[in-house]
């Protein structure tokens, strides 16, 4: 048995390595499937919830993805990372949920940036609310505001933001999952951050100084 083979199972019966997990799934090994569920259930649910902002939709997506993985594992050829394949299947299920509910929007960069004068310098005062946010973060209201702001992001920017800034995948991995170039991922991520900054600024500035808006 190869060195890799020794790591296939421990006393817990869990399949440890990703490639062994894939082999186990392909053989229809239920232990491998349990390990897969344990390892990916939260990731799939969190991605689906953060994209749809709807617990029922997130639950439906998890069920659909787990079933798809179990049924379609034979078609996984290993050309990309297994986790990328799982992310793609999850996002396809998410898009099916979103498709019927929302029209595609776009983010205009100009709307997200402050006003500049002709020389390119700030025209208005920018308030630094970064210190306030720490103390407010634990309130349910703030968490709801943040989740609503993310939910307002157009799909194209939202998916990049969730994969890159929340799941902390590399820019290259996000590009692989979404079929985007690295510059396209960076551009969408920057737009998403600017959009969210603008939305959160309104909330945090109003909290600190009611009636004042940027």
């Amino acid at each position, binding site marked *: 048995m190869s060195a890799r083979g020794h790591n296939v199972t421990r006393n817990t019966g869990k399949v440890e390595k990703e490639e062994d997990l894939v082999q186990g799934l392909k053989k229809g090994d*239920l232990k491998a*499937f349990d390990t897969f*569920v344990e390892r990916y*259930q*939260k990731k799939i*649910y*969190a991605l689906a*919830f*953060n994209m749809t902002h709807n*617990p029922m939709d*997130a*639950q439906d997506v*998890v*069920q659909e993805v*787990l*079933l798809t993985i*179990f049924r379609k594992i034979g078609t996984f050829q290993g050309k990309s990372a297994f986790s990328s394949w799982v992310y793609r299947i999850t996002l396809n299920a998410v898009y099916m949920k979103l498709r019927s509910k929302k029209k595609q929007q776009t983010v205009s960069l100009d709307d997200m*940036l*402050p006003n*500049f004068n002709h*020389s*390119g*310098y*700030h025209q*208005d*005062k*920018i*308030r*630094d*609310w*970064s210190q306030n*946010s720490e103390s407010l*973060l634990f309130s349910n209201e*703030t*968490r709801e505001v*943040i*989740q609503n*702001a*993310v939910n307002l992001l157009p799909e194209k920017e939202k998916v990049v*933001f*969730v994969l890159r*800034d*929340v799941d*902390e995948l590399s820019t290259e991995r996000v590009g692989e999952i979404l079929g985007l170039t690295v510059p396209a991922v*960076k551009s969408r*991520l*920057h737009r998403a*951050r*600017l959009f*969210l*900054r603008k939305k*959160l*600024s309104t909330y945090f500035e109003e909290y600190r100084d009611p009636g004042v808006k940027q």
Partner: protein
Amino acid sequence: MICCKECLELLYGYLEGELTPEVHAKLNEHFEDCPPCIAFLQTYRTTTKICRETLKSVEVPEEVKVKLQVFLNENVRNK
């Protein structure tokens, strides 16, 4: 000295450490004398941080875990 607009155009690269040392130093120089740009930088950075902390804390509710187990028993394990 570069202007605020140029600074914000380079902000992503600045935070990701993708700028050349010379350009990075120019931005630092600008930030030292520009409170609005510092405020923008801090709030941009904080936005990412607080969104990550909030969205990362999503857990699968217990009742959903139970429903998933029932679903998997019916559709996968007992097939």
